[in-house]
């Protein structure tokens, strides 16, 4: 266990030394500072009476804006932003995790230690997940607390959305670990991971395409890919519902995506365990 923790710790330190995570942390801090000091909300009788951004009045158009709706809106906007930009940055920052570990002269040293290969691989996975988790926790919990203190509204939507974002990253990380161990290339890992986003969006709208297809096998392949690959679009919709405090229709897309991530991680671990270095 101590050795596994050492791998996790080593991975965290390695990631924190990267400029991308520093930029991520700076952006989070900036966002927190803006929400804390630049946004001023005057709440009267549960509604927003006045709002100022950087000291400038925001024209509300005479409308009565319920403060809990405003908080939900801010939380959803932030969740959507982190889901897109945060995931993009996290994938970019951690794509070289496995290729770096597999570099000649480093992998030999790691594999000569009294630590099983699955533990080493899993330690690397948990390390990356922890770094992204810390960053996410810092931003999401920070904004949630500041908004709560400023408005008195403590809606858990943003926290739930944070959990979904971390889970989505965990799914992609499993995929990146697999691609990394097969190809030993950071650039291919990044390219394939980013390619998953438009591909899964395309598959979400596959019904529009299948009406034009005549071959049954083509429809079968599209359907198969849809069910195998992560469902980023649907996860985004679940995230939105959770952030707004609305009921979530079905968690099946989330579960099947998690299964994809776990399958990729298992396949990567198996390959790493059997490979000669």
């Amino acid at each position, binding site marked *: 266990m*101590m*050795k596994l*923790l*050492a*791998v996790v*710790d*080593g991975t965290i*330190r*390695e990631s924190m*030394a990267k400029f991308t995570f520093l930029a991520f942390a700076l952006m989070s801090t900036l966002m927190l500072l803006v929400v804390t000091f630049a946004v001023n909300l005057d709440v009267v009788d549960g509604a927003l009476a006045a709002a100022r951004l950087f000291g400038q009045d925001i024209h509300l158009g005479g409308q009565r804006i319920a403060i809990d709706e405003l908080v939900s809106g801010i939380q959803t906007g932030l969740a959507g932003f982190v889901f897109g930009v945060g995931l993009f940055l996290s994938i970019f920052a951690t794509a070289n995790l496995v290729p770096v570990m597999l*570099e*000649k*002269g*480093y*992998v*030999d*040293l*790691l*594999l*000569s*230690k*009294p*630590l*099983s290969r699955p533990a080493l691989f899993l330690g690397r996975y948990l390390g990356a997940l922890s770094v992204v988790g810390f960053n996410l926790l810092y931003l999401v919990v920070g904004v949630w607390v500041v908004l709560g203190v400023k408005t008195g509204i403590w809606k858990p939507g943003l926290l739930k959305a944070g959990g979904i974002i971390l889970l989505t990253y965990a799914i992609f990380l499993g995929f990146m670990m697999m691609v990394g161990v097969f190809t030993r290339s950071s650039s291919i890992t990044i390219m394939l991971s980013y390619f998953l986003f438009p591909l899964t969006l395309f598959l979400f709208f596959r019904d529009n395409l299948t009406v034009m297809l005549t071959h049954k096998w083509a429809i079968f392949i599209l359907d198969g890919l849809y069910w195998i690959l992560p469902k980023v679009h649907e996860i985004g919709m679940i995230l939105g519902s959770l952030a707004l405090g609305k009921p979530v229709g079905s968690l099946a897309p989330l579960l099947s995506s998690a299964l994809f991530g776990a399958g990729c991680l298992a396949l990567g671990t198996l390959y790493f365990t059997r490979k*000669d*270095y």
Partner: protein
Amino acid sequence: MSGFAIEIQDLHKTFRVGWHRIPIRALDGISLAVSQGEVFGLLGPNGAGKTTLVKVLLGITRPQAGRAEVLGLPVGNVPSRGRMGYLPEGHRYPLHLTGEGVVRWFARLSGVRGAQIGPRARRLLERVGLTRWSGVRLRKYSKGMVQRLGLAVALIHEPEVLFLDEPTDGVDPVGRAEIRKILQEEKQRGTTIFINSHLLSEIERTCDRVAILSQGRILRCGTVSDLTDRGLDYRVEAGTVAPAVVEAIRANGTPVEATNGCLHLRVPSLERLNACLDSLRSAGCLIRQVTPERSTLEESFIQILGEEETRP
């Protein structure tokens, strides 16, 4: 208990490379035994299979056939790796860490207990001459310094068997002497040391026994003197020797060459050597020294490899 720290029997390993999966035989039936506390050197040209053999012994690469044990346990046994230290060739460490950070991190990976890590790391960094640099990030280190750090990493958990792949690569002469001293200290502690090196002079000075590996096979194994011994060749220092005396020795069937007051004799037996010496003495020559002639390890290495290449 066999008393061997490393035991290898008929080990085979073939790699398949490229799209066409072309087989490359890296180890071709290697058998070897290294005693506990011995310093063993493995020599061979590039691609001979030296690194593959070490990787098999550490469980990094798996053999296709044969048996290998380290410290009485089959290779690949995960807990037994805690009793082995390894300095790979061209090793890389996380550049964002300091020298001490690297040693500490690998100590944790090796299972060293928390309270022991700090004192051990500092002691080892002092031994390898890096105390002044312990707080500096690795990206500032020279190649020789990284090599010394690698030795500290390999020793941090006080291993019983130490595998060193080109340990003095990139190290200056002073550093090499220091590394030799550390290896001697480890030998006195009872550590078994297995060294792969191209630097034959280093091997000659450090190792108790040596094996020469080529194309995955062991061509010769023995002590350095076994490998460098040229049989009954002697160098006799006898001042000025009259050509007639030299001719008389030659006439007796002993090949002899005279150069700068020295005679180089090749005799079939010690009796013939003494007969030659008697001839010299009776001719009034003053014999100052008689020494058996030896090749350097490098000469023997080249000769053994040459013999292997010319073998049908």
